[in-house]
């Protein structure tokens, strides 16, 4: 975030080229001081604080003793945390893949210059305007065997119809994926559609002259061109995977049993409900480390190495 602002500010100031050097950097730097301070104190400071607390035996209030890796050992032996971690992987992979595929299909569909495009766009993007809490509650009602879909189909005469994923331990995590995709596919569509609109129409004409079928055109020509959009969408979706909390709380409450627990909920419950700050912060630290491990190579490849080459 900060780097982006620096660049924007720098180019903005650089435009009138005749300005003296000092006047160029100073206002930008001054303008950045508050942001930099907030980032340092609030983000970095809280991160370090969290990591420090994870090595203590704090319960309700922070304590500053040192118990080594005891909390982490506890964490790894904790069924609920292990299930939470697995759930993040299942949800993350299916949710991101699902949103990208569905979002791309919707974008391609709208890109066919269909009638009432504006209406479709609004309808598809609409779920994204709802909070995860509303999404969760609505899907909870819809998938509840006694109230929603199952009852509806049974009342229509198909008395053998069963769709009890929400209350089934094995399948409940997939209901979260369904609700998540419903919520996130519209945004992916909007991002990819913006990309599609930027693709040169001559490409399409050339492909038609060469007799390339439409599916092949989209898959082999358009999709590679959309790479930056896909990356953007993936990053946005990945962020919502890591911070997944409200959807779970509203839809399943982590249940049935502990089948749909997620790490963020583990952290919140231990920090506030169970008076176990140390274990909660240990889980938070582990989440941070995981994210860093996944993102670091990507950041390196994208920013550090490419700069070196230039």
């Amino acid at each position, binding site marked *: 975030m900060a780097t982006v602002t620096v660049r924007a500010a720098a180019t903005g100031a650089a435009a009138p080229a005749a300005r003296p050097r000092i006047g160029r950097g100073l206002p930008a730097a001054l303008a950045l001081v508050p942001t930099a301070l907030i980032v340092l104190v609030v983000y970095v400071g809280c991160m370090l604080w969290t990591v420090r607390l994870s090595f203590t*035996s704090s319960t309700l*209030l922070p304590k500053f003793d040192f118990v080594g890796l005891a909390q982490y050992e506890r964490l790894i032996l*904790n069924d609920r945390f292990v299930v939470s971690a697995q759930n993040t992987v299942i949800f993350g992979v299916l949710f991101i893949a699902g949103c990208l595929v569905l979002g791309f299909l919707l974008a391609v569909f709208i890109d066919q210059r269909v009638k009432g495009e504006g209406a479709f766009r609004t309808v598809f993007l609409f779920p994204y305007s709802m909070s995860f809490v509303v999404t969760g509650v609505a899907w909870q009602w819809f998938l509840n065997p006694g109230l929603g879909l199952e009852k509806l189909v049974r009342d229509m005469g198909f008395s053998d119809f069963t769709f009890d994923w929400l*209350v089934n331990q094995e399948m409940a995590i997939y209901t979260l994926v369904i609700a998540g995709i419903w919520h996130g596919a519209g945004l992916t569509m909007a991002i990819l559609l913006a990309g599609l609109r930027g693709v040169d129409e001559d490409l399409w004409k050339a492909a038609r002259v060469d007799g390339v079928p439409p599916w092949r055109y989209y898959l082999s020509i358009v999709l590679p061109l959309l790479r930056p959009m896909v990356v953007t969408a993936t990053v946005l979706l990945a962020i919502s995977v890591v911070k997944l909390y409200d959807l779970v709380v509203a839809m399943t409450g982590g*249940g049935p049993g502990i*089948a749909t627990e997620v790490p963020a909920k583990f952290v919140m419950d231990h920090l506030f*409900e169970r*008076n176990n700050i140390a274990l909660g912060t240990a889980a938070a630290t582990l989440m941070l480390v995981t994210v860093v491990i996944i993102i670091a190579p990507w950041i390196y490849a994208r920013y550090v190495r490419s700069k070196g080459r230039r």
Partner: protein
Amino acid sequence: MGSFSRFSACTFAFTLLCSTPVLAQEKAEVMHWWTSAGESAAVKVFADAYTKAGGTWVDNAIAGGVNARAATVNRMVGGNPPTMAQFNTGKQFDELIENGLLVDVEAIAQAGKWRELMPKPIIEATVRDGKFYAVPVNIHGQNWMFYNTKIFADAGLEPPKTFPELIETGEKLKAKGVIPIALGGQPTWERNLFSALLVGHGGADLFRKIYGARDVEAAKSDKFKEVAELYGKMRGLVDPGSPGRNWNDAASLVITGKAAMHFNGDWAKGEFIAAGQTAGKEYGCTIVGEGKLVIGGDVFVFPVTKDAGAQAAQQKLAAVLLDPETQLAFNKKKGSIPVRLDVDVSSMDACAQKSHAVLKDPANQVEATEIISTPNFTGAMQDAITQYWNTSSMSADAFVEKVVTAMRSAS
């Protein structure tokens, strides 16, 4: 927006400047989580009593016990505590006392003879180092079984007295197309059902050994396994729509005659009352098993403050809360029973009178998990219980194993 907010900021600052010296004497800011209709009516009884005694009650209600407690602790640590704050009777405020953040009310307790009036578990849960550090205001019985009288009468069955009997009766009810047990399928209520079974079938002693002493031997005992097996059998008495259901929706299944029985604390009475039903008529309440009542409740604590006005307010509040009249009026609205056992409860409903009668015998008083167990261990037990309840293939032995792990690892 600019001019408006500046205007209101000015007014605010002005009001603050003018009013501080006047109000500071008896102004009491009270943090609590009583936000539902019945609860806020109940807390209003306290507010009115305090106003009558000459104070100013500033209500600061925050929805959800967890949120309210977190806010209280944050403000205390931050040095800007409320005058009075709600907690549950038990260990929730232990560390606040250890860190010297709470004022004791021992002098008032001695003057009011609290030790003679309250049940022992409640006293023990509020006294640390020989001093009262909180004012208990009510007693909630947590292991009541509410039942629909019409369903039992129509089926020609009696409400069960023991848990093995309950399973038999439940099967019969199920065959008649009634949901035998209405359960809010959330970990808290699954644990509450287990606690009712543990104390009702396993006995008060086993209950204390498991939750209080974390006795591994007790967890491996035959009796505990028997309890676990009974709990496993109860899975079949719940309808498929149970997972994720709120407790009040579960209670309403009994109210509307779709389900026969519902285990819950006496706060569930509020739902029956709101539906216009009367205890002993449309619905009944009973304790299944040995007849011991698991009791918890709410307390108010007084954070340490340098403000002389707030200190005076704290002294006044401590006395007002336990006034017999106030106690009776408050607990009628709250659904609990007065924490003073000397209050005449004949004007309360049938369930409350039953509670009161049961608690007259000290042997029937069993401490709730909030009193004998840390929030952390209760949570770890809850994880084990909810896993067992929701995994029908899990054996009682595997559950016992999980309980033992929870005992060893939770702080």
